[in-house]
Structures are given as C-alpha cells and as structure tokens.
C-alpha cells in the first residue's frame, strides 16, 4: 500500500512539476505569475488531441505538434500582450492582470470555436499498467515520467551549457545589467516563452491522455502554481521538487488521513510551510514580486 501510494503520488507530482516548470521559467525573467500558462497547456492538449485523431494514434506526431503549437501560442501571447507592456515599463502587476485577461479570452475562444465537449484521447498503450512489487504502475505514467525527466534535463543543459541559456540565467538575476551587457531582451523573452510553451505542450498532451480535454482544464494548473511557490518561484529545480512534494503530500493525506478533508489538510500544511519559509524551498526572497 505504501509503495502504491508513493507511485501514485509521484505520478501526480510529476504532472505538477511539468506544469510548474513553465511558471517558474517566466517568473524568473519577468517577475510575474503568468496565469495564461494554464490556458496554453489547454491549447496544447487540444492540438495534441486533434492531431492524434487525424493521424491514427501516432503519439509522436501528436506530442511534437502540441509542443510546436503551444510554443507558437506562447510566443504570440508574449509578443501581442506582454512585450508592448514591458516596453512601456509597466510594473509586473499589470502583466499579471493581462495574463488573466489572456487566459479568459483564450478559454472563451475555445468555447465558441471548438465547443464545451469533453474529449478523450484514444487508448494508446495496449497494456494499461505494469506490475511492480505488487503495485500497479500505469504505462502512461512511466512514459510520462521518463519523458518529463528527459525534457527537464534537456532544459537544464540548455540553461547551463549554451550562450542563450547563460543569458537567461543572467537576466533572471538582473535584467538591466544583462541588457547593458548586450543581451537582446525582447529576443530573450521570446525564447523563454517558447521554452515555457513547449513544456505547456508536453504537459497538455500528458494531461489530456491521463484525464480529458476540455476548455477549463487549464485551471488544474492552480495546483502547479502552488507547487512552484513551494519550490520557490523562479527556481527550476524548486519547481520540480515542489511539484513532487505536493503530489505526494496530497496522495498520502487522502490515503492515510481522509480523502474528504484532503485539501483542507494539505493546504494548511502548505500555508504553515510558507509562513516559515516565505520564499519557498529554493527561491530568493524579493519583495516586489507579484
């Protein structure tokens, strides 16, 4: 039972982590919480779903299409909605409110164009679960966990080993100094959003396969946002750790305490935790962040 609970917690936490990475990436550069991220995840899920229904269950095409599509949406989002504000030196609070607007706009666009139907991905894996010391691991979870791990490691390599990655890390410490040193800010922001969008595409497809595709599915990311806060907003390893912690905590509370009071209990713990460590596990504490 303990092992099964741990596995379930890990697989839920893995999804939170994947989503939290997107939040943290944007937050580390622009110091605002991009609430449109959940909506981009939703769009990624839709793209993935329609591709897989057109191309007869090819997960590769669906995943690739969702990554590219969501990255394009994220880029459009930043260049149409955020860059004009950033160029006029708007404070992060305005960006956050704009992101809420973008999120509501996109969600309703889906309502009027695609409709409010629920869609379910076709069954991709023939065998739905594998046995592991008497516990069941879903094949999808295993695949998702491995794929996410590879993607996050790839991102980590990109940030530490490339010139652009170094520039992004520099800008996350101080944007002004970075731009004084010759970093093209608009381009850098674009790259960050493309990366966040790509992760949104991955998260969207996995969420869609695991659960369902529908217009308000982006709201599940509120939990991922909380995971990012626990780990320390703006910190990439923090986002991963926060996601896993939240997933495991929730699962253990509902198994060993009570599923009825699960959220009451686990979120009281989160609040207590943040009172003690306001910047999260690995975050840097800055007052102006929104």
């Amino acid at each position: 039972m303990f092992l099964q609970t741990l596995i379930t917690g890990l697989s839920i936490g893995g999804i939170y982590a994947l989503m939290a990475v997107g939040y943290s990436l944007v937050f580390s550069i622009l110091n605002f919480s991009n609430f449109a991220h959940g909506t981009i995840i939703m769009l990624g899920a839709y793209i993935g779903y329609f591709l897989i229904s057109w191309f007869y269950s090819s997960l590769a095409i669906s995943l690739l299409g969702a990554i590219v599509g969501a990255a394009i949406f994220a880029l459009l989002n930043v260049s149409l909605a955020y860059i004009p504000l950033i160029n006029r030196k708007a404070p992060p609070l305005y960006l956050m409110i704009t992101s809420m607007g973008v999120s509501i706009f996109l969600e309703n666009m889906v309502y009027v164009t695609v409709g409010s139907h629920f869609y379910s991905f076709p069954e991709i894996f023939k065998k739905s679960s594998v046995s592991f010391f008497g516990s069941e691991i879903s094949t999808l979870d295993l695949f998702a966990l491995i794929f996410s791990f590879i993607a996050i490691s790839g991102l980590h390599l990109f940030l530490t080993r490339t010139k652009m990655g170094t520039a992004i890390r520099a800008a996350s410490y101080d944007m002004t100094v970075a731009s004084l040193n010759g970093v093209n800010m608009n381009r850098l922001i674009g790259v960050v959003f493309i990366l966040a969008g790509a992760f949104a595409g991955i998260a969207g497809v996995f969420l869609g396969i695991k659960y369902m595709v529908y217009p308000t599915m982006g709201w599940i990311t509120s939990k991922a946002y909380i995971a990012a806060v626990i780990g320390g907003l703006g910190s990439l390893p923090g986002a991963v750790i926060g996601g896993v912690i939240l997933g495991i905590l929730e699962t253990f509370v509902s198994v060993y305490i009570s599923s009825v009071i699960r959220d009451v209990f686990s979120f009281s713990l989160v609040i207590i935790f943040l009172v003690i460590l306001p910047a999260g596990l690995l975050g840097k504490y800055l007052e102006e962040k929104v």
Partner: protein
Amino acid sequence: MNKKKFRAFFVILLVAVLTLTACSEPLQQSDNGNGSEKNGVEPIKIGNTVALTGDVSIWGQSCEKALRLEVDKINAAGGINGRPIKLISYDNRGDSIEAVNVAKRLIEQDKVVAIIGPAMSGLAIAMSSVAEENKIPFIATQATNPQVTVPQEGKVRKYAFRTCFIDPFQGKVLAQFAYHRLNARKAAILYNVGDDYSAWLAKYFEDEFKKLGGNITNKEAFRSGELDYRAMLGKIKQNNPDVIFLPNTQKEAALAAKQARDLGIKSILMGGDACGTPDIVTLGGSAVEGFYLVNHASMDDPDIQDFVKEYKQKYGEEPVLPEPVLAVDALYLLVDAIKRAGTTEGSALAEALENTANLKVLTGTLTIDPKTHDPLNKPAIIQQIKNGEFVFVEKFVTN
C-alpha cells in the same frame, strides 16, 4: 452633433430589433386538432414546456415529437370524452428564467389546463410557484430532485407532479440490485463531496446496502473539478470490494473507471442516471465495459416497442430516450385524471392526479403517492455497457 445623435439612435433601434427577433424566434408552437374546432367542440389545451434549443435540445425535440404523435392518436380515437386535445409546446431553452416565462405564457395567454414538462429539476422548481399561484398542475418529466414536489419535509406542492423516479429511489434500486442480483456483499463508494446529487445518492445507496446486510468497505470523496482519484481508488483496492458505486457525472465516472482499471481493480462498477449518456463510452473506452447503471428508459424495454415503431414510422428516426417516454407517461396520466375529474378545473384536476393508482402507462403501471406526488415503486431500468453499447439488463422493481 446631430449626426452623432442620429447614429446613436440608429444603434439603439438596431439593438432593440435584434433583441426582439431573438426573443420571439425560438418560441415555436405546434397545433393539433384544429379541424375539430369547426365542429363547435372546444379543445382541451395542454401546455408543454420543453427545451427545443440549447444544450439539452436533442431530448427536448424528441419529447415534443413524441407528445405530438400520442396526441394525434388520442384525437383520432375521439379525444377525451369527445373533446380533442390541443397541444401547445413552447421552448424553455433548458433555462430556469425562460421556464418561468413559458409557464406564464401558457397559463395566462393560452389558458392551458395543465402543463407537461419541464425535464430538469432546476426549471421545475423555478416554475412551480407560477403553477401554484394559478392553480394549474404540471407534470415534470425527468426532474429527479425530491424538492420538485416536496420543497420541505412533510409539505407537498399541490400542483407539482412527476413521472420519473427520484434520487433516493435510485440509490435504493442500485443497492438492491447489487445485493440481490450481483450477490455483492462488500461495496465501496467514490462520490463528489461538492455536489448534492452525488453526495445524497451515495448516502441513499449506503443506507439501503447496509440495511440489506451488506458492508460498505470505503466511502471516499473527491471535489468537483478534480481529475485524479487514484489515491482513493488505491485505498478501495485494498479491501477488494465486490462493487464500486460511482454516483457521479459521466465524465467523472469514466475517469474513475479508467484509473480503477489502471490500478488493477477488478470490482464491478456501477453508476446512477447521470452516467446514462452515450459519451460515457467515448470517454471511458474499454474501462467502462461491464459498467452497470440505472436509467429511466431503454430502447430494449419490451413495453415501449410499439411506441418506438410508431415514432420511427412518423419521423424516420429513433426517439432520444428517456425524456419522450416520460412525457408520454405524463400525457396518459393527465388524460386519465381529466376523465376521472370530469372537469378541467385546476384544483379538481390536481386531486384526480394525486389519486392515480395502477394506471397503465407506456413504461408500466403508475401509482402516484399522494404524500409526495412521486410515482410509487416505479420500475427502473438497469443497463450494462457491452461492446460500447447500453444493453438492457432488466426492469427492476424495489421491494
């Protein structure tokens, strides 16, 4: 300045015209028995509030067609005591406010003697005050919430009736079916703590199952909007129950079924009438194979075969169940009450409806409980999903 004013005026005019046309357009009216009026016999007007547009219109449109079919049959056979029936159907769009407007229009403008519909509890509760005030009885079709006829314990709305079973009854049916037919002794429940329908249905099931001598191994909860039930299901798995009851919407039940199968749970799954929509199969895939659910009507029910045949002959398509058969039951119920009352006056009609006993209707025999205005021991249909189709298992009567 003038130009601006003119433009503003023009815009207001345009908006007004658009709103007016938008309001009047969906109100459809179907006339029946016009021919008889020439003979000087005044028809009996029966109102029908039904969703002809909107999300639930596939059922509503079929319901209106079924009623028209039956009214034509009754009129061809001489009507009620020689008077033909005139059916007046208005669109309520599945909306509570619109339901009130439709009820007012039917009663005040068309002067109907009674109303058939609506199909949803929210709409029925909203329009019940209009019916009460004007002393016009209405017979809801698929409104399963107890409060439609009994707003509070021990008090019944005099003019509200229905032909469907109610939620406590559903819970009872499923518990008895699980215990007697599936020989289940251990049951687990996974319900939505944030939804009245789900929470109460879970409780009704639990009470009955325990009364029968069964054991509820787990009663686990989740919250609306949540998608992952594996933690709760993992806990359920440990006790290895015979059945898992999912009193949820088709979306939640399909997800829970998928996750249960992923965890290697082999228990029989069952759900309430909210699962009875075909998309549970598209959403749940192979995981919902063998899923049992309770429903109001089934295409395979031997009692309704003649009706289905006639409907297909007239409209060239199958009726969309269950609303049409429940509406036809309501029509028979009403016709019988008018005959027995000998008048179409509202309070006499309500009393006659209240005292209906052992009336032969489309789906079986109907007895109205005078204390609650709900059908007594109405048979429920148990269906099972096999090869992606709803298959009729049996017509189940509680004891």
